[in-house]
């Protein structure tokens, strides 16, 4: 796997997980995807047929989800690291 040398963002991400777990958190799962990508996938599903996302407790192909579940994922808060 390609190693990213300058990985400050990743380190901050790991710190966030550490902080959550240190304060008694139990589980975390993530979507790492922009609203723009999801909207583009909704508009052009044929070009994004391989795009996987996290629903809740599992991953699925975004373009195969129903519109309401797609919308639910699009509308989830995009946190800033």
């Amino acid at each position: 796997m390609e190693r990213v040398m300058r990985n400050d963002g990743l380190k901050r991400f790991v710190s966030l997980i550490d902080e959550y777990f240190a304060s008694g958190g139990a589980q975390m799962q993530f979507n790492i995807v922009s609203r723009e990508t999801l909207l583009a996938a909704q508009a052009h599903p044929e070009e994004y047929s391989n795009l996987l996302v996290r629903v809740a407790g599992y991953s699925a192909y975004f373009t195969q989800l129903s519109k309401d579940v797609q919308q639910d994922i699009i509308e989830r808060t995009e946190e800033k690291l």
Partner: protein
Amino acid sequence: MEGNLSYQISTQPVRTKRIDELYRYITSFESGICVERGKYLTEFYEKEPDLPNVLKRARAIEHVLKNMSIYIMPGSLFAGNQTSKPRWAPIFPEFEVEWMEEEFIKGNPYFPSERPADRYTLREEDMEDIRHICGWWKGKTHVDRLRSRLPKEALQTHYEIKAADIGAYFQGGDGHFATAHEWLLHHGLEEIIRLSEEGLHSLDWRNDPDVVKKKDFYEAAAVTAASVMDYAARYVRLAREMAEKETDEGRKRELEDIADMLSHVPAKPARTFKEALQFIIITHICLHIEDNGVGISFGRFDQFMYPFYKKDVDDGILDREQATELVENFFLQIYTSNKVRSWQDTDYFRGVPMFQNLTIGGQDPVKKCDATNELSYICLDAIYNTRIPQPSLTVRFHKNTPFEFKMKVAEVVRLGTGLPSIFNDETYIPALLNRGYELDDAYNYCIIGCVEPGPAGLLGGRTGGAWLNCTKALEMSLYNGKDPRTGICLHPNKSGKDLVAFESFEEAKEAYKDQMKYYIKMEAILENTIDQLWEEHMNEPMTSVFGCPTTTLERGKTFKQGGAKYDFTGQQTIGTANIANSLYAIKKLVFDDKLITGAQLKHALETDFTDRETKPSGPQIQALCKNVGKYGNDIDEVDDLAREMLAFVANELCSYKNTRYGRGPIGGTLHCSTSTVSSNTPFGKVCGATPDGRNAYTPVADGQSPMKGTDTNGPTAAIRSVSKINNILLSCGSLYNLKFNPSDLY
């Protein structure tokens, strides 16, 4: 990274030619419906109606495994298929045929191939079998028995009010356990036959009141083990035939190798890493044929597979690259399994998830130190390279997890496939200890299904169960127990008051708890009736002996009779954020700040905040509701409500016993999780507007995550709120979804 692209799009997997071709081959198949299992199962049930239930099940599955089509995928180093084609789903008519009849035959509401999502191909040539299967099973299925056995109020809770939904366990399958792969790999299935025979010889016909049931169980256990061995033997013959015809020398050897492996496993213990993988594929796929359940999980793969890996590397017959390819091939092989649900039920399981969870990382159960090894890294590479939704990879973190490993995990998470999800030993282990798990077993937990912890090979029951719609209970508490959507009132508030009449915040809170208590009782009735009927009609020998061989074979009992070492009935509690936010809004707006009255708020909810004639108007009241502090922003007052209300549900659930209580296992109660799957969308569709400002019939919050769009103070504040939940009470698992922009994870 430039722009907002996804790392899935901007980075390429590293795949060998074999893996790339296999990936393309498998993903070229659309999901379809395979009639074979249903057909052969029905054939057997028609012929042998009078066998005892556990033996009937063993023999029926034996008949399926004998007759179903088998194939070996081009280039695959392993054999084992669940149905006639990759990604095709078998049918399980013994659970319910009504939905199949409606959808497959009548196209109501859709033919499977015309669904708006989760589509399946159904071949015209299979329709005659489908008609026969539906006709024969009508009136004889699990769901028919459930309808006649369940109290009316429990049926209304599930079908009409939707304060709980347990459709998945009406229409089929428990699943939701982690197979005892470690034990199976080291003992082989012949050992199950030997232990079953031993059990039969030592039956106590003089004193044991359960002796007849035990006899049935041991006979079924032996049949089930032999049937899986016979199924493996079919591939030996197929691989040899294919090898004979194969012109490519390399492929010929690979096929011969499959035949050689399956001449040895699963009957006997695995000798090599590759053989162990082949063993797991066979047992795993057979479990998926026995039962319509999902969430059949692999346990701590990097731990129990490491000795095989290490030995092969030391012997010079395996290197890391080869092992990676084998693991990738293994992942692709298990991705070929599929299930089909009714259209209605897919609402709760959107995107055809199979929840085949595989756990890596964590701690050594005996030494209590970090257990990460080379295989943990290989699994991460394999997930990075295969980029398929299965297996559902879980990583266990603890306070001494190496930084290097965490960074590697973060790199894979960054891909955005949603894999792996990350679990905290420091919370999960105490959660298990709190339920009576032995220390070493608690340290040895894996994740089952979505987020549910338990030690592989020791936990029966099921980690999944009903979805509990807390938002619905809250809504009904505001209407004195009446469901405004259906007009049904099963349980008026103890106080006899509604939102107009509540005189204090405490009264509002108590009304919610009172409703919740009633619907938890309904859930317990649903869960236990399902299990009782299962025990009476569909005991599962394979799940029992592969799921927990050490105690089921010792006690002569299936899971449902109390055969497992640990046994809990799981469930999923949905809408924590809506409850906290709604109660807090009532407290602030109606009682503390007195900005509106209970009557005004109730009217606004009834009219979905649209009535512009009132003062303040509907939209103004909605704005007030939305402006009250929300869970997810580190505001103690509202976070405390989230904690208190979820703890109330968790403790209440645990006070209910399941049908195995006192019959052998440790545990024997219901317990709580905040797993959601996609239920927050259909649950939202039955809930009117709520005091948190949420519009009628829109999704409720998922898991224990803040309500989408309301956690506006950044991730640190959000995680502080979520970690105030008493996660240790959630012994059936916690779920917290977070979303980041890829450009932040450079």
